[in-house]
């Protein structure tokens, strides 16, 4: 973790050092970089508003926290880091400005990275201050020449002076624009495209233009990926063909299908003070009739995922719009092999639901609005705290015919609890006791373990995390791992029922994570995490403790994250929004 942080910091600084060279200014009359980049480029990343990104990297709370961490300070005393700092200081003196300012001036016009179809990496930086770029470039070439081990070569091509350093990387500076390539042919292609007709450049490619439009004008950075080429890669091809995990098929609902249909993917990063948002758009149309995705779509315009359920101490909420009946009816398309897991699942469902047909008689009971809640739980001090503390989680389903479903679910729930109790009894472990208490006028079923036996004093086994319960209210069915969460959900659902929830527009999936509670549960399991870290990283306990504390610190910084998946104008769109803690 430490090395990753230092390498990020160094990486940022290195961009500055490379940036030394760059300085092209769109304002100065250089055309957009895409005009110089060949049409058959696989992917391109354009940082159109570098200052926003730099601001986040250099001046945000995140950087502050990292640089104030004891581990960072320790690393800062390492010889390599000191050498690096000395180098930076030297450049600062030579250029007459601090490195942060230099970095902004050198990259202010925009940064573009691209991968060509031949696998060459291109980097184009437009400097805001062309003079500073020339100055730095001259300085570095001079320094490189001083080092006799390094052979600096320069050649002329299409009127540009191209510099090649020892490792085969080449670059040139043209009117404030720094262009580097990992191989000479990459730079040649750029210079050829520049002097060729616009039709040969990426800028003229309709797919690129469409992706740019999808990314939006206000993006601080955007990327375009030519999926037509990417999909040819053997690994990707195999990945798209293989689709055997039923859970993934249910959650991704058509994403894989959309990828198969798509020609391009657009990504857009937006930065707004404390909020980062990353939006992904695919051009592939998901056909409404596709069995692979139809279960997540509705003809009705007001249908869609419901807002998440707000409960105290919520770590995460997930809300889906999935027609389980339609999904399971298409199982042969979705996961072709009959795995033993699937058959075992059907056997158990056959028992729980007393021989009813799973597809037509059980899953047909459920409406497509499905919600999942994860929350931190409090443990009863009279019973004790489990050695590993799991969060409470609950599934909230909506049903078409509440009375019928309530009985169906109640019977299945009690059978499942009985089965668990029976098998733990076989191992000599205690089983559950069923109860039917009432809370907030709702009668629910709960299964709980008796007081631990003497032998179990001290940290309790994992099973003490569970108090499975089932509650039916209105058209909602709550299946929860912990009684406290069931009660919280009863409160929340009562309020929701009074106000009739409205489905989210054009959204079939919504995931929200609250980092404060996530950090809290991670903190409660700090010992277990440390041990795992000791083991996996092959490090001492002290080092592992530092690692975990850094991780916890980083999670705490993140306030909230929201992920949505849905369709807009027939395009599949995924959006991740992260809000940092102020």
């Amino acid at each position: 973790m430490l090395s990753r942080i230092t390498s990020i910091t160094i990486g940022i600084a290195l961009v500055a050092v490379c940036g030394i060279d760059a300085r092209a200014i769109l304002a100065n009359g250089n055309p957009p970089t895409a005009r110089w980049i060949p049409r058959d480029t696989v992917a391109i990343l354009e940082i159109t508003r570098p200052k926003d990104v730099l601001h986040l990297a250099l001046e945000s709370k995140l950087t502050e926290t990292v640089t104030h961490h004891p581990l960072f300070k320790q690393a800062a005393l390492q010889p390599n880091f000191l050498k690096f700092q000395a180098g930076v200081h030297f450049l600062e003196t030579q250029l007459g400005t601090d490195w942060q300012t230099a970095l902004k001036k050198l990259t202010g016009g925009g940064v573009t990275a691209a991968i060509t179809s031949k696998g060459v990496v291109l980097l184009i930086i437009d400097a805001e201050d062309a003079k500073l770029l020339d100055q730095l470039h001259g300085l570095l070439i001079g320094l490189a020449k001083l080092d006799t081990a390094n052979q600096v070569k320069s050649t002329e091509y299409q009127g540009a002076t191209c510099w090649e350093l020892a490792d085969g990387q080449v670059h040139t500076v043209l009117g404030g624009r720094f262009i580097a390539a990992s191989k000479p042919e990459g730079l040649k292609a750029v210079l050829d495209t520049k002097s060729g007709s616009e039709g040969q450049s990426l800028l003229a490619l309709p797919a690129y233009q469409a992706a740019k439009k999808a990314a939006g004008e206000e993006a601080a950075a955007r990327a375009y990926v030519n999926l037509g080429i990417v999909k040819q890669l053997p690994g990707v091809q195999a990945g798209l063909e293989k689709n055997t995990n039923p859970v993934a098929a249910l959650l991704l609902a058509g994403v894989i299908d959309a990828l198969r249909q798509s020609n391009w993917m657009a990504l857009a990063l937006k930065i707004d003070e404390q909020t980062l948002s990353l939006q992904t758009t695919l051009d592939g149309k998901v056909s409404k009739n596709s069995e692979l995705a139809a279960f997540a779509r509705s003809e009705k315009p007001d249908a869609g995922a419901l807002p998440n359920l707000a409960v105290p101490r919520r770590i995460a909420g997930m809300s889906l719009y999935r027609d389980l009946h339609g999904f399971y009816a298409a199982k042969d398309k979705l996961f072709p092999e009959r795995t033993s897991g699937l058959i075992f699942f059907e056997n158990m469902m056959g028992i729980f639901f007393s021989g009813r047909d799973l597809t037509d008689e059980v899953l047909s009971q459920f409406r497509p609005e499905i919600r999942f809640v994860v929350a931190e739980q409090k443990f009863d001090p009279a019973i004790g705290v489990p050695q590993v503390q799991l969060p409470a989680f609950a599934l909230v389903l909506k049903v078409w015919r509440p009375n019928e479903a309530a009985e169906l679910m109640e019977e299945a729930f009690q059978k499942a609890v009985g089965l668990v109790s029976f098998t733990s009894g076989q191992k000599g472990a205690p089983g559950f006791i069923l109860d039917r208490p009432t809370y907030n006028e709702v009668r629910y079923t709960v299964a709980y373990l008796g007081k631990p036996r003497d032998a179990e004093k001290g940290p309790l086994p994992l099973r003490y995390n569970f108090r499975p319960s089932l509650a039916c209210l209105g058209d909602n069915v709550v299946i929860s791992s912990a009684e406290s969460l069931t009660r919280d959900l009863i409160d929340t659902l009562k309020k929701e029922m009074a106000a009739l929830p409205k489905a989210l527009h054009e959204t079939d999936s919504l995931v929200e994570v609250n980092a404060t509670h996530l950090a809290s549960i991670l903190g409660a399991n700090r010992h277990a995490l440390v041990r795992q870290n000791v083991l996996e990283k092959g490090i001492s306990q002290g080092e592992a403790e530092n690692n975990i504390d850094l991780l916890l610190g980083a999670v705490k910084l993140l306030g909230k994250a929201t992920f949505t998946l849905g369709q807009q104008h027939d395009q599949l769109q995924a959006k991740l929004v992260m809000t940092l803690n102020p």
Partner: protein
Amino acid sequence: MSLSRRDFLKQSLGTSALVSASASVPCFLARTAAAAQTQPPQDDTILIVVQLAGGNDGLNTVVPFRDDLYAKNRPTLRLSAEKLHKLDGDFGFHPQMPGFYKLYQEGLLGVLHGVGYPNPNQDHPHAMRVWQSADLRPDASQTGWLGRAVDQIYQPEAARVPAVYVGQIPRPFAMNAERAIVPWVRSLDQYGLQGDDGQVPPETPHAEASSPDRAPFQQKTAGSSPAHDLLPFVQRVALAARATSRQVEAATKAPAGDYPRFQFAATLRTIVQLIRAHLGIRIFYAELGGDEPGGFDTHAGQALNHGALLEQLSESIAAMVHDLKRDRLLDRVLLMTFSEFGRTVAENGRRGTDHGSAQPLFVVGGKVRGGLIGQHPRLDDLESNGQRAHTDFRRVYATLLDEWLKIDSRPVLGSRFSPVAFLKT
């Protein structure tokens, strides 16, 4: 039984491999190995055992369509006679088994009716252990039946274990051996030597002494005889490993037959490639149905699930037979399927069947006596609600060991069992 050096080299190199020794192979060994190339290959027989986990419903696999009791016991699961692949006036294969039907017609497939053992156990892990250990008190058994067979023919000096498990679930107990480390192959990639540049050292004569600054361990008065020197053995293993790696690589590049897109078909293709690599592997173990309790455990909604599994079984094996025929390998190969038990004759209320007892086994190969072998157990004389077995499974094992593999079955099975006539004489 000890191997001569020549035998060893022959075994470890097979015939096709030109042993171009490389990085860690000393030259003199490469020369000796090359000299052994003229030996003809051993045409040993090969056994492939296929485990069908969960308890296969034999009654809906080989269907007694004329028996009224069949229809009576299977109100929703019965398969109508028109759709079956009819073997004769009484029996037919499940509709999704055209491949098996074709093999049957060609005389390459035999059905052994009513195989099991007395007082059958109906618990998955216990019953599976019975079949895997060939011991009716399987808890006392520390090794599997094939593990014991392997231990009998394995020569540590030869540096090759003549058995392999190919599959995706953990190694089955049947292959647990006392001495031999039976490889678990998930993919043939694992035979590749990573980071090996295949550079061949020059053929220069070596002085026995190493460089003067590193004089060998001097002890003038003492010397261990060459018989105690382990280094030549290790060098031979390195050589054998390199040869194996090359042979497998060559076999994977050789054209293969067409297989359906099932995981099980991929497993069988891997086995055929290993046979083509001529590594001296005589016992293969494969599985369909996965982890316990297994896919054949069709307690609920059996019809579609069971049909899909039978299709995988039948079409994959048919493709394998076709592939083996191309290289005239079929006469050397025999495949047998088994499950831990059959299923109840009557269906349960969940459109499924429960754990039964006797089951039909399938034997496939060029030397197999095709057809229906033995009596179909009656449907009105049941044992634990399943069919009553008349053929002890250990008789089948004994036939495979004694008559097919030519491995003495007595140490493997603990006593002598009379053979079952399913091999061509």
